[in-house]
C-alpha cells in the first residue's frame, strides 16, 4: 500500500499581535514539527485533547491554513506552496467534513446549492447535470430527491451531517479529513454516521484522516493512530498496538481515562491520572512537552526533547524512558 499523504516537519504558527502597532509579540505553536504518512485506503486516526493542534494539522494538510514551515506531499506532489489553479486542482481530491453541521452549512442556501456548489466551482456542468449529480450523491448518503429544495434548518443534526458528507463527496475525492464528524451528535445518530462513513470508504476507496478526541471512535474506525500533545505527535502505531501496548505515558493516561461503558471495567483498569492541565502552546515547556504532567518525568526530560523514534516495527514513540516505563507494567 502506497502512501497518499506525507508530512515532513510541518509547522503552523499563528502570530499573536499586540500593542500599538500590532507588532508580533509571540506565536501560538499549534503544529510544531509533525512527521507522518497516510497510506492509501486507510483510516488514519489522530487523537488529542482540545488545543493540541489536531484540527490545525488537518486544516494545514488541506492548505486551508498556511503552513509556517515543513512540507506536505499529496500523491507524491509537493503541495506546500502551490497556488491558484494548481491548488484548486488538488482540492478536488481532498475534502473535509467539519464537526458542527449546524454551522458548516449555509443557512440561506437550499440543499441543492450547498451540495452542488463544488461542481459549480470545479466543473463546467450545466444546471440540470448538477441537479442530477446532487440527487445521486444525496441518495448515497441516505437522503433523497425530495430534500433538494429545502434549507438546512429543516433537517436534524444527523441529516445535516449527511448533507455535509454529500457535499464533500460530490467531486469524488480520494482523501477526506473528518474533523470530529460525530461529536455534535447523539449516540444513536453517531452510530448511523459512522456506519455510513465506513460504507462510503469501501465504495469509493477513500482515505480518511479522522480527527477525534473520542478514543472509542478512533479505535472503531482507524487502521493506524497518532496521538498528539501540544503540537507534536508523541506516539504513532497500528491501532491494535497502540491500544493494547501503548508506550508513551500520555497515551497510557488517555486510554485509561476514557470511561468504558461496562461497570466491571473500572475494577480491572488502573487509571493513570494526570496532574494539572495541558500547558499553553504559546510557551510550551522545555524539553519534552509532556514533562510537566508526566508522572515518570526525570531531569533529562526537562532538558532534552525526545525524538519520535521507531522502537518496534511501525511503532513510533517520542519518550526518553519508554522502555523503563513499559517494563514497570502499569
Amino acid at each position, binding site marked *: 500500500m502506497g502512501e497518499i499523504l506525507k508530512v515532513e516537519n510541518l509547522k503552523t504558527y499563528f502570530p499573536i499581535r499586540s500593542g500599538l502597532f500590532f507588532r508580533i509579540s509571540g506565536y501560538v505553536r499549534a503544529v510544531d514539527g509533525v512527521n507522518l504518512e497516510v497510506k492509501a485506503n486507510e483510516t488514519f486516526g489522530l487523537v488529542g*485533547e*482540545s488545543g493540541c493542534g489536531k484540527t490545525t494539522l488537518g486544516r494545514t494538510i488541506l492548505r486551508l491554513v498556511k503552513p509556517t514551515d515543513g512540507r506536505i506531499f499529496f500523491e507524491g506532489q509537493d503541495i506546500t506552496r502551490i497556488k491558484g489553479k494548481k491548488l484548486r486542482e488538488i482540492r478536488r481530491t481532498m475534502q473535509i467534513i467539519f464537526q458542527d453541521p449546524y454551522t458548516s452549512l449555509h443557512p440561506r442556501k437550499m440543499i441543492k446549492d450547498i451540495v452542488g456548489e463544488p461542481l459549480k466551482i470545479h466543473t463546467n456542468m450545466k444546471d440540470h447535470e448538477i441537479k442530477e449529480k446532487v440527487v445521486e450523491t444525496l441518495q448515497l448518503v441516505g437522503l433523497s430527491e425530495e430534500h433538494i429544495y429545502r434549507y438546512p434548518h429543516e433537517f*436534524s443534526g*444527523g441529516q445535516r451531517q449527511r448533507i455535509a458528507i454529500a457535499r464533500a463527496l460530490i467531486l469524488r475525492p480520494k482523501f477526506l479529513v473528518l474533523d470530529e464528524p460525530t461529536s455534535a451528535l*447523539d*449516540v*444513536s445518530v*453517531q*452510530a*448511523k454516521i*459512522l*456506519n455510513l462513513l*465506513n460504507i462510503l470508504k469501501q465504495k469509493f476507496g477513500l482515505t480518511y484522516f479522522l480527527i477525534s*478526541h473520542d*478514543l*472509542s*471512535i478512533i*479505535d*472503531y474506525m482507524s487502521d493506524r493512530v497518532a496521538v498528539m500533545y501540544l503540537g507534536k505527535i508523541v506516539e504513532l502505531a497500528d491501532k491494535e498496538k497502540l*491500544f493494547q501496548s501503548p508506550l508513551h505515558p500520555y497515551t497510557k*493516561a*488517555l486510554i*485509561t*481515562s*476514557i*470511561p*468504558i*461503558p*461496562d*461497570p*466491571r*471495567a*473500572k475494577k480491572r483498569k488502573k*487509571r493513570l*491520572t*494526570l496532574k494539572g*492541565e*495541558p500547558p499553553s502552546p504559546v510557551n510550551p515547556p522545555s524539553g519534552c512537552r509532556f514533562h510537566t504532567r508526566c508522572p515518570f518525568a526525570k531531569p533529562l526530560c526537562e532538558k532534552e526533547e525526545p525524538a519520535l523514534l521507531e522502537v518496534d516495527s511501525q511503532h513510533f514513540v517520542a519518550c526518553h524512558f519508554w522502555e523503563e516505563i513499559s517494563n514497570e507494567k502499569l
Partner: protein
Amino acid sequence: MSSKNTLLEVRNLKTYFYTYRGVVKALEGVNLKLGYNEIMGLVGETGSGKSVTALSIMRLINPPGKILSGEIIFDGRDLLKLSKEEMREIRGKEISMIFQEPRAALNPVMRVGDQIAEAIETHEKLKKEELKNAVIDLLKKVGLPDPDRLINQYPHELSGGMAQRVVIAMAIAFKPKLLIADEPTSSLDVTIQAQILDLLEDLVSEMGSSVLFITHNLGVAAELCNKISVMYAGTVVESCDTYTIFDDPLHPYTVGLIKAVPKMGQRGELYVIEGELPDLVNPPPGCRFQPRCPKAMEICKRTPPKTIEIKPGHVVACHLYNEG
C-alpha cells in the same frame, strides 16, 4: 425500597413549555427514586428531558415552562408545595447543582472568592475573616492549588477544569443531601474529566450525599453511578442498578442505546436505532418510543405503558413486560 430509605422520589412529573409552536410536552410523567448515598445516572439523548427533570426538581422552571402536575418528595417534603422562600432555603443548602459549562455558570465580572463567599452568605452570616477562611477551605477541598491567590482571580483566568472545581466548591459549601450534576464533565477533556470524576466521587462519599448525575455518556455513568435511569422523550423508560442495566437491559431503547456505542475493540457494523427522536409538540400516541421500536405491538400505539417494578429495584415502562 421503603420510603424511609428514599431521599428523593419524583412521581408522575409533568413539565410542559408553552411556545409559539405549540405545547412542548417535555416531561410526560417522570418517575424517579433516589436513595441515600446513591449516585444515580440519568442517561438519555439530547431532548430526552434530563435537564428539564433536574431544573424541575430545583423548581427553576420559568415561563414559558410550567410544572403541571406530579410530586417531588425530597426528604419527606413535597417540593412542589413549598413557598418560594422555603424553596430558596433548600436550594444551595440541601440540594445544589453543578452545570455543564463551568465558565457560563460563573459570573465573569466577579472574583472567584467573592462568588463562593456569596454562595455561603446566602444561607449563613459569617464574619469577614471566617468567611475568607471558609472560602479557602472549600477551594482546598476541591483540590485547587494556591487558593490565596485564586480568590482574587476572575473566571476567565481559569481553565475549564479549574472553573468546574470552583463551581463544585460552591455546590458543596453546605454538604447538600442531594447534588444534581448536569453533564459536569461534557465540556472537559478526558484527562481532566477523569480528575473531576475522581474528585466528585471522593467528595460525595465523604459528605454522604446522594447524586443525580445527568449524562449522555454511558461510559461515565458506568464508572461513577450505582444506579442508572434511562430517559427517552420525556419519560423514564428503565431504572435499575448499574450492573443490571448493562448485563440485562429490558427496554428496547436501553438495549439499542447500549449497543449503539462503539466499544473498545469492537469491529463490524454498529447497531442502529432506526428513525429520529420525536417532536415533543406532537409526540407519537401510546408509547413514545413505539415508532422506532423493533418490538412494537398493536397496544404500544394506543396506550402509554405503565411503569412497573419487574424485580426489586428494576423498573421498566414497556408493554413487553406488562402483566399478561
